[in-house]
């Protein structure tokens, strides 16, 4: 079974490196010389927008061997539907993995948008279904439904979306949604249904994932914890006769040598706010975030205090916005860790690196060609993760 490797696309600009936490790409900081999209010409904005940078990253990704990219969605980001629809015709193979929360769109509308986007892209739409935890309270988005109910709603949402997809007429009478005589019209109906990457670490999320996920997508965690999480998902889904695949979202900092990789982290570390080294702060009601923070012995003082397992580093959030865990090391080390994850049962990756444009080329040129999963797979099923698991230093239980 082939492994699908995606490369994240920043929907809120990008830094030029991990060395300084300054967003010089996109317009999240004031217009200044050296800024890109918009840039400055003769003292004025040059007319380029953040979408032009996203287009560059998308093209770099498809040229570098990635199948597509995850487009995140938060209050401060550009919207993934808007970006994907805009870039459909200037990409060729790029799959748009659109992050969205089901509660914000009606499922019939989501079906219509997806079907037209499938037609615009030749079937390159992928879903990252998220059900909350996106920063501020849900009511910022105008959503009143609370945490566990959101997963029940997500289930209904996907029931309706799938129900109308191939035509109709489709009737549904649920707790959250009701439709009568629904169905996509002739030219839109019956296209390939977008693959669903399902996120969420809570029991409610895992229960909902069982019914609908093609891929269960997790942030990176120390491998043993990740294997345990996958086992939990598998247990839930086997009971109802389904078997989702597994995907991991991983930041990557890979260099020619291990020393060069850590030296790059050190450069960024100089600018980290010392207060952030004392320990994590709660963020929304995301179970995944709290879980990630539990793998580290806070407080910390040096970068490698955050290395929860060899090359598994939990400090990326200190150098850029986003989740904490990623891989740091030489090209060979990072490729070896990815191989180990494949051996653990991972079928897909959503990789990322700062800056996304240049790092897409680097990882595509230097890391992906080193993968050799076919030697490892089949000898190490998920049920027996010990075969390829590196030694673990700091798995402090699960939330």
């Amino acid at each position, binding site marked *: 079974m082939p492994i699908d490797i995606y490369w994240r696309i920043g929907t809120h600009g990008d830094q030029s490196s991990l060395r300084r936490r300054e967003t010089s790409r*996109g*317009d*999240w900081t004031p217009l200044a010389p050296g800024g890109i999209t918009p840039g400055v010409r003769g003292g004025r904005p040059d*007319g380029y*927008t*953040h*979408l032009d940078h996203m287009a560059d990253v998308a093209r770099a990704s498809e040229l570098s061997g990635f199948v597509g990219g995850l487009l995140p969605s938060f*209050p*401060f980001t*550009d*919207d993934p*539907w*808007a*970006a994907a*629809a*805009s*870039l*459909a*015709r*200037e990409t060729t193979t790029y799959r748009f993995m659109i992050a969205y929360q089901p*509660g*914000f*769109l*009606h*499922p*019939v*509308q989501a079906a*219509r*948008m997806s*079907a*037209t*986007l499938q*037609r*615009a*892209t*030749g079937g390159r739409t992928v879903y990252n279904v998220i059900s909350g935890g996106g920063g*501020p*309270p849900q*009511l*910022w*988005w*105008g*959503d*009143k439904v609370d945490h566990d109910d959101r997963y029940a709603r997500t289930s209904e949402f996907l029931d*309706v979306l799938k129900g109308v997809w191939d035509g*109709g*007429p489709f009737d549904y009478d649920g707790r959250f*949604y*009701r*439709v*009568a*005589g*629904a*169905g996509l*019209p*002739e*030219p*839109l109906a019956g296209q390939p249904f977008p693959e669903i990457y399902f996120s969420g670490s809570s029991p409610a999320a895992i229960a909902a994932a069982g019914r609908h996920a093609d891929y269960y997508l997790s942030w990176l965690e120390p491998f043993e914890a990740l294997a345990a999480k996958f086992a939990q998902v598998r247990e839930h889904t086997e009971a109802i006769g389904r078997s989702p695949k597994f995907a991991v979202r991983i930041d990557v900092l890979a260099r020619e040598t291990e020393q060069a990789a850590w030296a790059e982290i050190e450069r960024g570390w100089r600018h980290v706010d010392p207060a952030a080294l004392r320990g994590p702060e709660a963020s929304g009601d995301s179970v995944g975030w709290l879980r990630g923070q539990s793998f580290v012995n806070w407080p910390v003082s040096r970068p490698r205090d955050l290395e929860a397992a060899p090359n598994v580093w939990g400090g990326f959030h200190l150098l850029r916005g986003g989740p904490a865990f990623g891989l740091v090391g030489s090209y060979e080390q990072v490729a070896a860790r990815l191989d180990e994850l494949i051996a653990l049962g991972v079928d897909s990756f959503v990789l990322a690196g700062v800056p996304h444009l240049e790092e897409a080329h680097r990882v595509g040129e230097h890391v992906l060609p080193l993968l050799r999963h076919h030697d490892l797979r089949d000898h190490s099923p998920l049920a027996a993760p010990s075969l390829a698991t590196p030694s673990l230093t700091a798995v402090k239980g699960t939330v």
Partner: protein
Amino acid sequence: MSTPEFHLVLPTRGGPAPAPLPSFVTDLRPGAFGPLEHLAEIGRAADVAGFHGVLTPFDPGGEESLVVTAGLLRQNRWLRGIAGFHPGIATPVYAAKVSASLQRFSGDRLDWRLTVDLDPAVARSQGDFLEGADRYVRADEFLTIAKGVWHEEDYTYEGRYFQVLAGGFQGPLAGRAFPRVLLSGTSTEALELSAEHADVHLFGLGDDLDAGIAELSELSVGRGPTPAFGLRLPVLVREDRAEAEAEARRRGDDAPAGLFGSYGEVADTIRAHLSRGVTVFVLEAEPGVEETYRLGEHLLPLFTEEYTHAD
């Protein structure tokens, strides 16, 4: 006299599939083009021919309008994109969020065409069971909240249909132009909604134009600027009337409604509408690309000249 704006309605139900070429003729098309190429072609034609914009209508039987509009905005330089939808498709916050990005990407060229009074059976097929005047209450809440989070940083609203707590766009998502809002309808509820929210009120062929304009103008007093008035209608125009009539007969329509006749006749009709206060013309013309070029070369220039002289 005001300067008219001309927009085109996109045919989002697609057309008949092209006839296959004989088997001994090389045909490079299969597999090379997607089903939306034709819409992209018409959008490009409208841009180069000098139209102000294109309307992608809300049509449960056609392509989805926001996705189509996003693509057209990206591929064209001047064109405004009017996306048609109804207030049940999303939370107003999310509709505004998607639109804020499209405004950023396009330099503020997105407009909203909000349909409020869907046929009840159509509405139910879209998951919307609200009927009657309540739909206007909901549309008012939808637009109020969308504008609220767009313009304010700490925005709270507790409505019957939608809520938001401490919402509002920040950073570069804030500060763009809110999409122009196009509404329609001749009921009191519809005109009230337009007085409150519309930038353009669109009339149709069967509407009593003068009465609607008078009533909406009156309702708008004391509530901010009066909306611009628009008219959506089909157009069939040729170099002279005989040629237009011949084309109508060929299409099996002996008495075409809307704008019909020679370039000069149709221009006169448009001038008459302009003098009544209508400034936005949303035209239905088929086939798309050919008629778009024709209108751009022969009808639109008649108004460009007036504009130049008036200055």
